[in-house]
């Protein structure tokens, strides 16, 4: 029989992984058998090397292998939100929006400061027409990582295109620029909004 602490860990691991899909995972059970011995935990160095290898698989578009590698890593190291997030990204690209929303929500539950997962959530909420939740997700991403250019840009697009809040859009686009986003087209959007809505302000930081 596993110790009580091991059981708690296994149950927690199961709920985190289940967040990456509303469907059962592709190969085999999520959790090892309760009667089987608990898997041995690889060292932190091994985990870093395995993560790097899995990331390389993702980069080279060997998605099935990458998914298997990240799943193994997430099972062995449930506290590594990077493996879980990449697992969710892979599944979000392959499955429907509702499942992806659920997956990233679980990833954020595992790590509330995971700005990449929060940004994904923002985009998915926007796509489903839930602009309020989209705004909240982008803002949480920026609270966790203020210089996260993608979330700044996405917040600007949300205000600009979907919520018709040009003043806030300009502030967010400026935040994108201040975060290192160097696209001239975004600079053009800022000028265009300022010209059209008279939103020129002295503020140059991120949207409040």
């Amino acid at each position, binding site marked *: 029989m596993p110790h009580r602490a091991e059981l708690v860990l296994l149950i927690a691991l199961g709920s985190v992984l289940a967040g990456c899909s509303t469907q059962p995972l592709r190969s085999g059970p999520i959790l090892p058998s309760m009667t089987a011995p608990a898997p041995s935990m690889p060292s932190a160095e091994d*985990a*870093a090397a395995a*993560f790097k290898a899995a*990331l390389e698989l*993702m*980069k080279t578009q060997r998605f099935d292998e990458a998914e298997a590698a990240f799943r193994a890593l997430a099972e062995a190291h449930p506290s*590594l*939100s*990077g*493996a879980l*997030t*990449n697992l969710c*990204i892979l599944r979000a*690209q392959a499955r429907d929006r509702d499942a992806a929303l659920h997956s990233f929500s679980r990833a954020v539950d595992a790590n509330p400061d*995971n700005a*990449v*997962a929060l*940004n*994904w959530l*923002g*985009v998915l909420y*926007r796509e489903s027409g839930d602009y309020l939740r989209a705004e909240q997700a982008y803002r949480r991403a920026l609270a966790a990582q203020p210089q996260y250019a*993608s979330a700044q*840009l*996405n917040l600007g*697009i949300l205000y*600009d*295109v979907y919520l018709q809040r040009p003043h806030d859009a300009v502030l967010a686009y400026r935040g994108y620029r201040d975060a290192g986003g160097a696209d*001239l*087209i975004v*600079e*053009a*959007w800022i*000028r*265009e909004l300022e*010209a059209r809505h008279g939103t020129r302000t002295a503020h140059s930081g991120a949207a409040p």
Partner: protein
Amino acid sequence: MAAREATRIALSLPIERSLPRRVEATRAALDALTAAADYGFAEITTAATYEIAVMYRELGGALLRAPRPRGLDALEQEQYALLLEEQAFPFEESAIKAFEANLARLDQGIWNESVQRSAAALTEMVPARYGKHERRDLRYASPG
């Protein structure tokens, strides 16, 4: 003036007769606009660059909309359309480059109607690159 004259020449059948007239008129207009763009005044340069881009874009569009000869079967129509697309593509590319040249002037703080319209044209022509689309990371590089 030369630009307007060029765009008035419709591509009609037989295209081998109308196309050279249109191309010749376009070339004359482009020469005049290029000379204007070289004046060195921001307003004139950006306006001329915008017009150059529009000339290229309209020529490309005219080719795509050109009337098809009668009597072609389905396969021949498809091949004819592909041929027109191939001919139009370099003009569209030139248009995009000219619009981008105007957009790049924002780096020097130049913002006027011509730059604004160039940015809008790029959004239409290359939405994947210049459209207002959200960005999301396709990988999470940190293990933690």
